[in-house]
Protein backbone atom coordinates (compact mmCIF):
# COMPACT_ATOMS: atom_id res chain seq x y z
CA UNK A 1 0.00 0.00 0.00
CA UNK A 2 2.73 2.39 -1.00
CA UNK A 3 4.60 4.58 1.37
CA UNK A 4 1.65 5.93 3.32
CA UNK A 5 0.22 2.90 5.06
CA UNK A 6 -3.42 1.93 4.53
CA UNK A 7 -5.69 4.88 3.76
CA UNK A 8 -9.50 5.09 4.04
CA UNK A 9 -9.57 5.11 0.23
CA UNK A 10 -7.90 1.67 0.15
CA UNK A 11 -10.49 0.25 2.53
CA UNK A 12 -13.31 1.81 0.50
CA UNK A 13 -11.93 0.13 -2.63
CA UNK A 14 -11.70 -3.34 -1.06
CA UNK A 15 -15.13 -3.02 0.57
CA UNK A 16 -16.61 -1.98 -2.78
CA UNK A 17 -14.95 -4.92 -4.49
CA UNK A 18 -16.10 -7.18 -1.65
CA UNK A 19 -19.72 -6.11 -2.06
CA UNK A 20 -19.44 -6.81 -5.79
CA UNK A 21 -18.01 -10.29 -5.25
CA UNK A 22 -20.65 -10.99 -2.63
CA UNK A 23 -23.42 -9.97 -5.06
CA UNK A 24 -22.03 -12.31 -7.72
CA UNK A 25 -21.80 -15.16 -5.20
CA UNK A 26 -25.38 -14.46 -4.14
CA UNK A 27 -26.58 -14.63 -7.74
CA UNK A 28 -24.67 -17.89 -8.21
CA UNK A 29 -26.13 -19.38 -5.01
CA UNK A 30 -29.70 -18.45 -6.03
CA UNK A 31 -29.25 -19.76 -9.56
CA UNK A 32 -27.55 -23.02 -8.59
CA UNK A 33 -29.30 -26.03 -7.15
CA UNK A 34 -29.97 -29.72 -7.70
CA UNK A 35 -32.80 -28.84 -10.11
CA UNK A 36 -33.14 -26.04 -12.63
CA UNK A 37 -35.86 -23.43 -12.19
CA UNK A 38 -37.94 -21.35 -14.56
CA UNK A 39 -36.88 -17.77 -13.85
CA UNK A 40 -40.04 -16.35 -15.36
CA UNK A 41 -41.93 -18.05 -12.56
CA UNK A 42 -39.35 -17.29 -9.89
CA UNK A 43 -39.40 -13.57 -10.61
CA UNK A 44 -43.17 -13.36 -10.18
CA UNK A 45 -42.45 -13.86 -6.44
CA UNK A 46 -45.69 -15.80 -6.49
CA UNK A 47 -45.33 -18.59 -3.97
CA UNK A 48 -47.94 -20.75 -5.64
CA UNK A 49 -45.16 -21.58 -8.12
CA UNK A 50 -42.87 -24.29 -6.79
CA UNK A 51 -39.87 -22.63 -8.46
CA UNK A 52 -40.52 -19.33 -6.66
CA UNK A 53 -40.76 -21.14 -3.32
CA UNK A 54 -37.56 -23.04 -4.12
CA UNK A 55 -35.53 -19.91 -4.75
CA UNK A 56 -37.01 -17.45 -2.25
CA UNK A 57 -37.88 -19.75 0.63
CA UNK A 58 -35.05 -22.29 0.41
CA UNK A 59 -32.06 -21.07 -1.60
CA UNK A 60 -32.22 -17.47 -0.35
CA UNK A 61 -32.18 -18.17 3.39
CA UNK A 62 -29.58 -20.86 2.81
CA UNK A 63 -27.37 -18.44 0.91
CA UNK A 64 -27.76 -15.91 3.72
CA UNK A 65 -26.78 -18.56 6.26
CA UNK A 66 -23.77 -19.50 4.13
CA UNK A 67 -22.69 -15.86 3.90
CA UNK A 68 -22.95 -15.38 7.67
CA UNK A 69 -21.11 -18.62 8.37
CA UNK A 70 -18.32 -17.89 5.90
CA UNK A 71 -17.84 -14.35 7.16
CA UNK A 72 -17.81 -15.47 10.80
CA UNK A 73 -15.37 -18.32 10.17
CA UNK A 74 -12.94 -16.22 8.11
CA UNK A 75 -12.95 -13.38 10.64
CA UNK A 76 -12.67 -15.85 13.52
CA UNK A 77 -9.62 -17.31 11.78
CA UNK A 78 -8.04 -13.87 11.40
CA UNK A 79 -8.57 -13.09 15.08
CA UNK A 80 -7.35 -16.47 16.40
CA UNK A 81 -4.29 -16.46 14.14
CA UNK A 82 -3.29 -13.14 15.72
CA UNK A 83 -4.23 -14.20 19.23
CA UNK A 84 -2.11 -17.37 19.27
CA UNK A 85 0.35 -15.89 16.75
CA UNK A 86 0.34 -19.06 14.70
CA UNK A 87 -0.54 -19.48 11.02
CA UNK A 88 -1.97 -22.95 11.71
CA UNK A 89 -4.69 -21.48 13.89
CA UNK A 90 -8.29 -21.73 12.72
CA UNK A 91 -11.53 -20.91 14.54
CA UNK A 92 -11.57 -24.58 15.59
CA UNK A 93 -8.10 -24.79 17.08
CA UNK A 94 -9.11 -23.76 20.59
CA UNK A 95 -11.75 -26.47 20.94
CA UNK A 96 -14.76 -24.16 20.86
CA UNK A 97 -16.25 -25.90 17.85
CA UNK A 98 -15.55 -29.27 19.47
CA UNK A 99 -17.74 -28.13 22.38
CA UNK A 100 -20.44 -27.30 19.87
CA UNK A 101 -19.99 -30.64 18.12
CA UNK A 102 -20.29 -32.55 21.38
CA UNK A 103 -23.45 -30.63 22.27
CA UNK A 104 -24.89 -31.35 18.84
CA UNK A 105 -23.87 -35.02 18.94
CA UNK A 106 -25.52 -35.54 22.33
CA UNK A 107 -28.70 -33.79 21.20
CA UNK A 108 -28.86 -35.83 17.98
CA UNK A 109 -28.08 -39.07 19.83
CA UNK A 110 -31.14 -38.40 21.99
CA UNK A 111 -33.17 -37.93 18.83
CA UNK A 112 -33.46 -34.13 18.82
CA UNK A 113 -34.77 -32.62 15.60
CA UNK A 114 -32.40 -29.63 15.65
CA UNK A 115 -28.79 -29.57 16.78
CA UNK A 116 -28.38 -25.76 16.82
CA UNK A 117 -29.32 -24.87 20.41
CA UNK A 118 -27.29 -27.75 21.87
CA UNK A 119 -24.33 -26.80 19.66
CA UNK A 120 -24.51 -23.23 20.91
CA UNK A 121 -24.56 -24.32 24.56
CA UNK A 122 -21.64 -26.67 23.89
CA UNK A 123 -19.65 -23.82 22.35
CA UNK A 124 -20.31 -21.60 25.36
CA UNK A 125 -19.19 -24.34 27.77
CA UNK A 126 -15.97 -24.88 25.80
CA UNK A 127 -15.31 -21.12 25.68
CA UNK A 128 -15.60 -20.96 29.47
CA UNK A 129 -13.23 -23.90 29.97
CA UNK A 130 -10.59 -22.62 27.52
CA UNK A 131 -10.82 -19.10 28.92
CA UNK A 132 -10.12 -20.29 32.45
CA UNK A 133 -7.48 -22.82 31.37
CA UNK A 134 -5.77 -20.17 29.20
CA UNK A 135 -5.20 -18.07 32.33
CA UNK A 136 -6.85 -14.69 31.72
CA UNK A 137 -4.83 -13.21 34.60
CA UNK A 138 -1.71 -14.00 32.62
CA UNK A 139 -3.26 -12.20 29.63
CA UNK A 140 -4.07 -15.41 27.70
CA UNK A 141 -0.50 -15.67 26.45
CA UNK A 142 -0.20 -17.23 23.03
CA UNK A 143 1.47 -20.53 23.79
CA UNK A 144 -0.41 -21.46 26.96
CA UNK A 145 -3.72 -20.49 25.35
CA UNK A 146 -2.92 -22.54 22.26
CA UNK A 147 -1.93 -25.53 24.36
CA UNK A 148 -5.02 -25.26 26.56
CA UNK A 149 -7.23 -25.04 23.48
CA UNK A 150 -5.63 -27.95 21.67
CA UNK A 151 -5.99 -30.13 24.76
CA UNK A 152 -9.63 -29.16 25.31
CA UNK A 153 -10.12 -29.99 21.62
CA UNK A 154 -8.58 -33.44 22.02
CA UNK A 155 -10.60 -34.22 25.15
CA UNK A 156 -13.87 -33.16 23.54
CA UNK A 157 -13.06 -35.10 20.37
CA UNK A 158 -12.74 -38.27 22.46
CA UNK A 159 -16.15 -37.54 23.97
CA UNK A 160 -17.65 -36.97 20.50
CA UNK A 161 -16.26 -40.33 19.36
CA UNK A 162 -17.81 -41.98 22.42
CA UNK A 163 -21.24 -40.46 21.75
CA UNK A 164 -20.95 -41.57 18.13
CA UNK A 165 -20.13 -45.14 19.12
CA UNK A 166 -23.01 -45.52 21.55
CA UNK A 167 -25.62 -43.71 19.40
CA UNK A 168 -28.22 -45.67 17.46
CA UNK A 169 -27.15 -46.25 13.82
CA UNK A 170 -29.81 -43.92 12.41
CA UNK A 171 -28.74 -41.12 14.78
CA UNK A 172 -25.10 -41.83 14.00
CA UNK A 173 -25.73 -40.98 10.35
CA UNK A 174 -27.24 -37.62 11.33
CA UNK A 175 -24.33 -36.94 13.67
CA UNK A 176 -21.82 -37.68 10.91
CA UNK A 177 -23.58 -35.35 8.49
CA UNK A 178 -23.61 -32.63 11.11
CA UNK A 179 -19.91 -33.09 11.86
CA UNK A 180 -19.04 -32.67 8.18
CA UNK A 181 -20.50 -29.18 8.30
CA UNK A 182 -23.32 -28.03 6.10
CA UNK A 183 -26.63 -26.23 6.04
CA UNK A 184 -30.00 -27.66 7.05
CA UNK A 185 -32.99 -27.43 4.73
CA UNK A 186 -34.76 -24.80 6.79
CA UNK A 187 -33.76 -21.94 9.08
CA UNK A 188 -35.50 -19.93 11.73
CA UNK A 189 -35.51 -16.31 10.57
CA UNK A 190 -34.57 -15.31 14.10
CA UNK A 191 -31.40 -17.44 14.09
CA UNK A 192 -30.35 -15.94 10.74
CA UNK A 193 -31.03 -12.46 11.98
CA UNK A 194 -29.13 -12.89 15.23
CA UNK A 195 -26.23 -14.58 13.43
CA UNK A 196 -26.07 -11.73 10.92
CA UNK A 197 -26.17 -9.09 13.63
CA UNK A 198 -23.47 -10.77 15.73
CA UNK A 199 -21.18 -11.26 12.74
CA UNK A 200 -21.68 -7.79 11.26
CA UNK A 201 -21.17 -5.97 14.55
CA UNK A 202 -18.08 -8.02 15.43
CA UNK A 203 -16.69 -7.36 11.94
CA UNK A 204 -17.04 -3.62 12.49
CA UNK A 205 -15.59 -3.99 15.99
CA UNK A 206 -12.54 -5.89 14.71
CA UNK A 207 -12.05 -3.36 11.92
CA UNK A 208 -11.89 -0.63 14.57
CA UNK A 209 -9.38 -2.82 16.43
CA UNK A 210 -7.28 -3.45 13.31
CA UNK A 211 -4.27 -1.46 14.57
CA UNK A 212 -4.31 -3.47 17.79
CA UNK A 213 -4.46 -6.67 15.71
CA UNK A 214 -1.45 -5.40 13.75
CA UNK A 215 0.50 -4.66 16.92
CA UNK A 216 -0.32 -7.89 18.77
CA UNK A 217 0.44 -9.87 15.59
CA UNK A 218 4.01 -8.55 15.90
CA UNK A 219 4.47 -8.88 19.65
CA UNK A 220 2.78 -8.12 22.96
CA UNK A 221 5.81 -6.03 23.90
CA UNK A 222 5.44 -3.70 20.93
CA UNK A 223 1.72 -3.40 21.63
CA UNK A 224 2.37 -2.49 25.27
CA UNK A 225 5.01 0.09 24.31
CA UNK A 226 2.54 1.55 21.85
CA UNK A 227 0.00 2.22 24.58
CA UNK A 228 -2.21 -0.85 24.12
CA UNK A 229 -3.68 -2.59 27.17
CA UNK A 230 -2.48 -6.01 26.04
CA UNK A 231 -4.39 -8.09 28.58
CA UNK A 232 -7.70 -6.41 27.83
CA UNK A 233 -7.08 -6.64 24.10
CA UNK A 234 -6.27 -10.36 24.20
CA UNK A 235 -9.44 -11.03 26.20
CA UNK A 236 -11.46 -9.02 23.66
CA UNK A 237 -9.93 -10.97 20.78
CA UNK A 238 -10.56 -14.29 22.50
CA UNK A 239 -14.20 -13.50 23.19
CA UNK A 240 -14.74 -12.09 19.69
CA UNK A 241 -13.19 -15.11 17.96
CA UNK A 242 -15.19 -17.41 20.23
CA UNK A 243 -18.49 -15.65 19.53
CA UNK A 244 -17.86 -15.79 15.78
CA UNK A 245 -16.99 -19.48 15.95
CA UNK A 246 -20.05 -20.25 18.05
CA UNK A 247 -22.29 -18.35 15.61
CA UNK A 248 -20.90 -20.25 12.62
CA UNK A 249 -20.96 -23.68 14.26
CA UNK A 250 -24.49 -23.15 15.55
CA UNK A 251 -25.75 -22.32 12.06
CA UNK A 252 -23.87 -24.90 10.02
CA UNK A 253 -21.76 -27.27 12.09
CA UNK A 254 -17.98 -27.24 11.84
CA UNK A 255 -17.47 -26.41 8.16
CA UNK A 256 -13.77 -27.09 7.66
CA UNK A 257 -10.99 -25.09 6.08
CA UNK A 258 -12.66 -21.69 5.60
CA UNK A 259 -11.37 -20.13 8.79
CA UNK A 260 -7.87 -21.50 8.30
CA UNK A 261 -7.32 -20.55 4.71
CA UNK A 262 -9.35 -17.47 3.79
CA UNK A 263 -7.21 -15.22 6.04
CA UNK A 264 -4.04 -16.64 4.47
CA UNK A 265 -5.29 -16.11 0.92
CA UNK A 266 -6.12 -12.52 1.80
CA UNK A 267 -2.68 -11.96 3.34
CA UNK A 268 -0.96 -13.54 0.34
CA UNK A 269 -2.60 -10.98 -1.93
CA UNK A 270 -2.85 -7.89 0.27
CA UNK A 271 -0.23 -8.25 2.99
CA UNK A 272 -0.84 -8.45 6.71
CA UNK A 273 -2.35 -5.05 7.55
CA UNK A 274 -5.60 -5.89 9.30
CA UNK A 275 -7.30 -2.72 8.09
CA UNK A 276 -7.51 -4.67 4.81
CA UNK A 277 -7.33 -8.26 6.11
CA UNK A 278 -10.44 -7.88 8.29
CA UNK A 279 -12.90 -6.51 5.69
CA UNK A 280 -11.57 -8.61 2.80
CA UNK A 281 -11.67 -11.82 4.86
CA UNK A 282 -15.28 -11.11 5.84
CA UNK A 283 -16.42 -10.70 2.23
CA UNK A 284 -14.12 -13.43 0.90
CA UNK A 285 -15.24 -15.98 3.50
CA UNK A 286 -18.91 -15.20 2.87
CA UNK A 287 -18.57 -15.54 -0.92
CA UNK A 288 -16.47 -18.71 -0.64
CA UNK A 289 -18.96 -20.59 1.54
CA UNK A 290 -21.95 -19.44 -0.54
CA UNK A 291 -20.35 -20.76 -3.73
CA UNK A 292 -19.15 -23.96 -2.03
CA UNK A 293 -22.59 -24.69 -0.58
CA UNK A 294 -24.47 -24.03 -3.82
CA UNK A 295 -21.98 -26.21 -5.71
CA UNK A 296 -22.12 -29.02 -3.15
CA UNK A 297 -25.90 -28.98 -3.37
CA UNK A 298 -25.86 -29.60 -7.12
CA UNK A 299 -22.84 -31.70 -8.15
CA UNK A 300 -24.04 -35.09 -6.86
CA UNK A 301 -27.18 -37.21 -7.22
CA UNK A 302 -28.23 -35.94 -3.81
CA UNK A 303 -27.22 -32.62 -2.20
CA UNK A 304 -23.92 -32.87 -0.32
CA UNK A 305 -23.04 -30.86 2.79
CA UNK A 306 -20.95 -27.76 2.04
CA UNK A 307 -18.12 -29.02 4.26
CA UNK A 308 -17.33 -31.73 1.71
CA UNK A 309 -16.36 -29.14 -0.88
CA UNK A 310 -14.68 -26.34 1.09
CA UNK A 311 -11.53 -28.34 1.79
CA UNK A 312 -11.62 -30.57 -1.29
CA UNK A 313 -11.58 -27.60 -3.67
CA UNK A 314 -10.05 -24.92 -1.44
CA UNK A 315 -7.03 -27.01 -0.44
CA UNK A 316 -5.51 -27.52 -3.91
CA UNK A 317 -6.33 -23.92 -4.84
CA UNK A 318 -4.48 -22.68 -1.79
CA UNK A 319 -1.43 -24.82 -2.49
CA UNK A 320 -1.16 -23.31 -5.98
CA UNK A 321 -1.40 -19.79 -4.55
CA UNK A 322 1.15 -20.54 -1.84
CA UNK A 323 3.75 -21.53 -4.44
CA UNK A 324 3.66 -18.26 -6.34
CA UNK A 325 2.82 -15.77 -3.59
CA UNK A 326 4.94 -13.27 -1.71
CA UNK A 327 5.20 -15.21 1.53
CA UNK A 328 7.26 -12.59 3.34
CA UNK A 329 4.56 -9.99 2.81
CA UNK A 330 1.97 -12.43 4.11
CA UNK A 331 4.04 -13.11 7.23
CA UNK A 332 4.55 -16.76 6.24
CA UNK A 333 8.30 -16.73 5.61
CA UNK A 334 9.59 -17.96 8.96
Amino acid at each position, binding site marked *: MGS*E*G*VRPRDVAVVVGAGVGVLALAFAFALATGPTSVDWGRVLTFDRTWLDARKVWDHRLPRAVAAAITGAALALGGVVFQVLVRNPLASPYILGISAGGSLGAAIALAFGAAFAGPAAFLGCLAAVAVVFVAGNPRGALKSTSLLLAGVIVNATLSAAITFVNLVAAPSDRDRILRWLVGGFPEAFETSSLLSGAMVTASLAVFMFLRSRELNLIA*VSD*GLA*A*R*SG*VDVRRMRIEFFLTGSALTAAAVTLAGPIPFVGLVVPHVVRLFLGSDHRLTVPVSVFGGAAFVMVADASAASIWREPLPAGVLTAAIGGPMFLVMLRSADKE*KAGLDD
Partner: protein
Amino acid sequence: MTEGMEVFGLSAGHVASNPVIRDASAKLGSGRLGCMVGRNGVGKSTLLETIAGLRAPFAGRVRLDGVDPHAISAPVRAGLVGYLPQADVVPRGLSALDYVLLARRALQGPWPFDRDEDVAAAHAALEACCADPLADRRLGAMSGGELQRVRLAQAMVGGARFLLLDEPSSHLDPRHRIETFALLRGLVDRGITALVVTHDLDLATGCDAAWLIGADGALTSGSPDDVLTPEALGAAFGVPFQLATAEGRKPIPVPMGPTLRANARRREP
Protein backbone atom coordinates in the same frame (compact mmCIF):
# COMPACT_ATOMS: atom_id res chain seq x y z
CA MET B 1 10.15 20.33 39.26
CA THR B 2 13.52 18.77 38.54
CA GLU B 3 14.56 18.62 34.93
CA GLY B 4 15.95 15.40 33.52
CA MET B 5 15.75 11.81 34.69
CA GLU B 6 15.76 10.80 38.34
CA VAL B 7 15.29 7.52 40.16
CA PHE B 8 15.18 7.44 43.93
CA GLY B 9 15.16 4.45 46.26
CA LEU B 10 13.97 2.29 43.41
CA SER B 11 13.31 -1.39 43.97
CA ALA B 12 12.12 -3.52 41.06
CA GLY B 13 12.16 -7.02 39.59
CA HIS B 14 9.96 -10.04 39.07
CA VAL B 15 9.05 -10.91 42.69
CA ALA B 16 8.69 -8.32 45.42
CA SER B 17 10.38 -10.54 48.02
CA ASN B 18 13.55 -10.75 45.93
CA PRO B 19 13.93 -7.60 43.82
CA VAL B 20 16.66 -7.48 41.18
CA ILE B 21 17.15 -3.74 41.62
CA ARG B 22 17.35 -2.64 45.26
CA ASP B 23 17.26 0.91 46.56
CA ALA B 24 18.72 2.42 43.39
CA SER B 25 19.13 6.19 43.15
CA ALA B 26 20.66 8.15 40.28
CA LYS B 27 20.15 11.20 38.09
CA LEU B 28 20.70 12.10 34.47
CA GLY B 29 20.58 15.76 33.49
CA SER B 30 18.24 17.04 30.81
CA GLY B 31 19.67 16.82 27.31
CA ARG B 32 22.42 14.42 28.37
CA LEU B 33 23.59 11.10 26.97
CA GLY B 34 24.00 8.57 29.76
CA CYS B 35 25.22 5.01 29.63
CA MET B 36 24.29 2.13 31.92
CA VAL B 37 26.97 -0.49 32.46
CA GLY B 38 26.87 -3.74 34.39
CA ARG B 39 27.27 -7.44 33.96
CA ASN B 40 24.68 -9.75 32.38
CA GLY B 41 21.70 -10.47 34.58
CA VAL B 42 22.37 -7.69 37.07
CA GLY B 43 19.10 -5.89 36.29
CA LYS B 44 19.92 -3.30 33.63
CA SER B 45 16.90 -4.17 31.48
CA THR B 46 14.67 -4.36 34.54
CA LEU B 47 15.76 -0.88 35.61
CA LEU B 48 15.24 0.46 32.08
CA GLU B 49 11.73 -1.01 31.83
CA THR B 50 10.87 0.44 35.21
CA ILE B 51 12.05 3.92 34.18
CA ALA B 52 10.09 3.52 30.92
CA GLY B 53 6.89 3.05 32.94
CA LEU B 54 6.38 -0.46 31.59
CA ARG B 55 7.18 -2.29 34.84
CA ALA B 56 5.81 -1.07 38.15
CA PRO B 57 8.45 -0.65 40.89
CA PHE B 58 8.04 -2.32 44.29
CA ALA B 59 9.32 0.77 46.04
CA GLY B 60 10.84 4.14 45.26
CA ARG B 61 10.06 6.57 42.47
CA VAL B 62 10.91 7.49 38.91
CA ARG B 63 10.70 11.09 37.67
CA LEU B 64 11.10 12.24 34.09
CA ASP B 65 11.10 16.05 34.07
CA GLY B 66 9.27 15.70 37.37
CA VAL B 67 6.60 13.37 35.93
CA ASP B 68 6.01 9.84 37.23
CA PRO B 69 5.74 7.64 34.09
CA HIS B 70 3.71 5.11 36.09
CA ALA B 71 1.04 7.66 36.96
CA ILE B 72 0.17 8.83 33.45
CA SER B 73 -1.89 7.35 30.64
CA ALA B 74 -0.26 5.38 27.83
CA PRO B 75 -0.70 8.13 25.19
CA VAL B 76 0.88 10.75 27.47
CA ARG B 77 3.68 8.33 28.33
CA ALA B 78 4.38 7.70 24.63
CA GLY B 79 4.98 11.42 24.20
CA LEU B 80 7.28 11.45 27.21
CA VAL B 81 9.46 8.37 26.99
CA GLY B 82 10.46 5.96 24.24
CA TYR B 83 11.88 2.51 24.97
CA LEU B 84 13.91 0.28 22.69
CA PRO B 85 14.10 -3.30 23.97
CA GLN B 86 17.19 -5.37 23.45
CA ALA B 87 15.51 -7.79 21.06
CA ASP B 88 12.06 -7.89 19.55
CA VAL B 89 10.21 -9.79 16.86
CA VAL B 90 10.94 -8.28 13.46
CA PRO B 91 7.98 -8.49 11.06
CA ARG B 92 10.02 -9.11 7.94
CA GLY B 93 7.26 -8.30 5.47
CA LEU B 94 6.58 -4.76 6.78
CA SER B 95 8.14 -1.65 5.31
CA ALA B 96 10.16 0.56 7.65
CA LEU B 97 7.51 3.26 7.47
CA ASP B 98 4.64 0.90 8.32
CA TYR B 99 6.68 -0.57 11.18
CA VAL B 100 7.41 2.86 12.64
CA LEU B 101 3.79 3.93 12.15
CA LEU B 102 2.57 1.00 14.30
CA ALA B 103 3.93 2.75 17.38
CA ARG B 104 1.87 5.90 16.66
CA ARG B 105 -1.15 3.99 17.99
CA ALA B 106 -0.64 5.52 21.40
CA LEU B 107 -1.34 8.99 20.04
CA GLN B 108 -4.26 8.12 17.78
CA GLY B 109 -7.99 8.06 18.41
CA PRO B 110 -10.45 5.25 17.71
CA TRP B 111 -10.59 5.79 13.92
CA PRO B 112 -8.12 3.16 12.67
CA PHE B 113 -6.17 5.19 10.13
CA ASP B 114 -2.88 7.05 10.20
CA ARG B 115 -3.37 10.79 9.93
CA ASP B 116 -1.07 12.98 7.84
CA GLU B 117 0.63 14.07 11.05
CA ASP B 118 1.35 10.42 11.92
CA VAL B 119 2.99 9.83 8.54
CA ALA B 120 4.93 13.08 8.88
CA ALA B 121 6.09 12.10 12.39
CA ALA B 122 7.21 8.69 11.12
CA HIS B 123 9.22 10.27 8.32
CA ALA B 124 10.71 12.79 10.76
CA ALA B 125 11.74 10.02 13.17
CA LEU B 126 13.29 8.01 10.32
CA GLU B 127 15.03 11.17 9.13
CA ALA B 128 16.43 11.85 12.61
CA CYS B 129 17.81 8.32 12.66
CA CYS B 130 19.33 8.63 9.17
CA ALA B 131 16.86 6.01 7.95
CA ASP B 132 14.36 7.95 5.83
CA PRO B 133 15.78 6.53 2.57
CA LEU B 134 14.80 3.11 3.96
CA ALA B 135 11.14 4.10 4.46
CA ASP B 136 9.78 1.81 1.72
CA ARG B 137 12.26 -1.02 2.26
CA ARG B 138 11.08 -4.18 4.01
CA LEU B 139 12.62 -5.04 7.37
CA GLY B 140 13.49 -8.50 6.04
CA ALA B 141 15.75 -6.90 3.44
CA MET B 142 17.79 -4.78 5.86
CA SER B 143 21.22 -5.16 7.40
CA GLY B 144 21.62 -5.19 11.18
CA GLY B 145 22.70 -1.55 11.25
CA GLU B 146 19.81 -0.40 9.07
CA LEU B 147 17.32 -2.34 11.15
CA GLN B 148 18.68 -0.84 14.36
CA ARG B 149 18.19 2.69 12.99
CA VAL B 150 14.59 1.87 12.03
CA ARG B 151 13.92 0.40 15.49
CA LEU B 152 15.35 3.53 17.06
CA ALA B 153 13.03 5.64 14.88
CA GLN B 154 10.10 3.57 16.13
CA ALA B 155 11.12 4.15 19.75
CA MET B 156 11.08 7.93 19.28
CA VAL B 157 8.12 8.31 16.88
CA GLY B 158 5.79 9.28 19.71
CA GLY B 159 7.78 12.48 20.17
CA ALA B 160 9.40 11.31 23.39
CA ARG B 161 11.77 13.64 25.25
CA PHE B 162 13.41 10.66 26.97
CA LEU B 163 14.86 7.63 25.23
CA LEU B 164 15.75 4.40 27.03
CA LEU B 165 17.77 2.10 24.81
CA ASP B 166 18.73 -1.46 25.71
CA GLU B 167 21.99 -2.39 24.00
CA PRO B 168 21.31 -0.63 20.69
CA SER B 169 24.88 -1.29 19.54
CA SER B 170 25.13 -5.00 20.26
CA HIS B 171 25.48 -7.23 17.16
CA LEU B 172 26.84 -4.25 15.22
CA ASP B 173 30.26 -3.99 13.63
CA PRO B 174 32.71 -1.35 14.98
CA ARG B 175 31.75 1.25 12.41
CA HIS B 176 28.03 0.85 13.00
CA ARG B 177 28.52 0.90 16.78
CA ILE B 178 30.29 4.23 16.46
CA GLU B 179 27.61 5.50 14.07
CA THR B 180 24.89 4.49 16.52
CA PHE B 181 26.48 6.53 19.29
CA ALA B 182 27.08 9.45 16.91
CA LEU B 183 23.37 9.26 16.06
CA LEU B 184 22.44 9.28 19.75
CA ARG B 185 24.74 12.25 20.28
CA GLY B 186 22.89 14.05 17.49
CA LEU B 187 19.51 13.30 19.13
CA VAL B 188 20.78 14.51 22.49
CA ASP B 189 21.99 17.73 20.87
CA ARG B 190 18.36 18.27 19.80
CA GLY B 191 17.30 18.19 23.45
CA ILE B 192 16.51 14.51 24.00
CA THR B 193 17.71 12.84 27.19
CA ALA B 194 18.97 9.33 26.45
CA LEU B 195 20.02 6.48 28.73
CA VAL B 196 21.77 3.64 26.89
CA VAL B 197 22.64 0.19 28.17
CA THR B 198 25.90 -0.86 26.59
CA HIS B 199 28.91 -3.14 26.92
CA ASP B 200 30.97 -0.94 24.60
CA LEU B 201 33.14 0.70 27.25
CA ASP B 202 35.07 2.72 24.69
CA LEU B 203 31.83 4.40 23.68
CA ALA B 204 30.50 4.53 27.24
CA THR B 205 33.43 6.69 28.34
CA GLY B 206 32.39 9.21 25.69
CA CYS B 207 28.94 9.70 27.26
CA ASP B 208 28.02 12.65 29.49
CA ALA B 209 27.19 10.44 32.45
CA ALA B 210 27.58 6.82 33.51
CA TRP B 211 25.42 4.57 35.69
CA LEU B 212 27.31 1.50 36.88
CA ILE B 213 25.51 -1.42 38.49
CA GLY B 214 27.99 -3.30 40.65
CA ALA B 215 28.13 -7.07 41.14
CA ASP B 216 26.16 -6.57 44.38
CA GLY B 217 23.43 -4.69 42.50
CA ALA B 218 24.41 -1.27 43.90
CA LEU B 219 23.95 1.61 41.47
CA THR B 220 26.59 4.37 41.29
CA SER B 221 26.37 7.30 38.93
CA GLY B 222 28.40 10.31 37.92
CA SER B 223 30.76 11.34 35.17
CA PRO B 224 32.21 8.40 33.20
CA ASP B 225 35.73 9.24 34.35
CA ASP B 226 34.68 8.98 38.00
CA VAL B 227 32.39 5.96 37.67
CA LEU B 228 33.99 3.74 35.02
CA THR B 229 37.32 3.37 36.80
CA PRO B 230 39.36 0.19 36.33
CA GLU B 231 38.77 -0.67 40.01
CA ALA B 232 34.98 -0.24 39.83
CA LEU B 233 34.70 -2.08 36.51
CA GLY B 234 36.92 -4.87 37.80
CA ALA B 235 34.62 -5.34 40.78
CA ALA B 236 31.50 -5.11 38.64
CA PHE B 237 32.56 -7.61 35.96
CA GLY B 238 34.92 -9.87 37.89
CA VAL B 239 37.88 -9.40 35.55
CA PRO B 240 40.76 -6.93 35.95
CA PHE B 241 40.64 -3.72 33.91
CA GLN B 242 43.40 -1.32 32.84
CA LEU B 243 43.32 2.04 31.16
CA ALA B 244 44.63 1.95 27.62
CA THR B 245 45.51 5.12 25.78
CA ALA B 246 45.66 5.64 22.07
CA GLU B 247 47.65 8.70 21.03
CA GLY B 248 45.67 11.91 21.38
CA ARG B 249 42.58 10.08 22.77
CA LYS B 250 41.01 9.76 26.17
CA PRO B 251 42.12 6.64 28.06
CA ILE B 252 39.58 3.83 27.86
CA PRO B 253 39.19 0.91 30.26
CA VAL B 254 39.87 -2.48 28.69
CA PRO B 255 39.45 -5.92 30.30
CA MET B 256 42.75 -7.66 31.06
CA GLY B 257 41.74 -11.26 31.46
CA PRO B 258 44.23 -13.94 30.50
CA THR B 259 44.31 -13.87 26.71
CA LEU B 260 43.22 -17.08 25.07
CA ARG B 261 46.45 -16.98 23.11
CA ALA B 262 48.79 -16.78 26.09
CA ASN B 263 47.37 -19.94 27.62
CA ALA B 264 47.14 -21.82 24.38
CA ARG B 265 49.79 -23.92 22.77
CA ARG B 266 51.44 -21.89 20.04
CA ARG B 267 49.93 -22.73 16.68
CA GLU B 268 50.52 -21.52 13.21
CA PRO B 269 47.82 -18.99 12.36
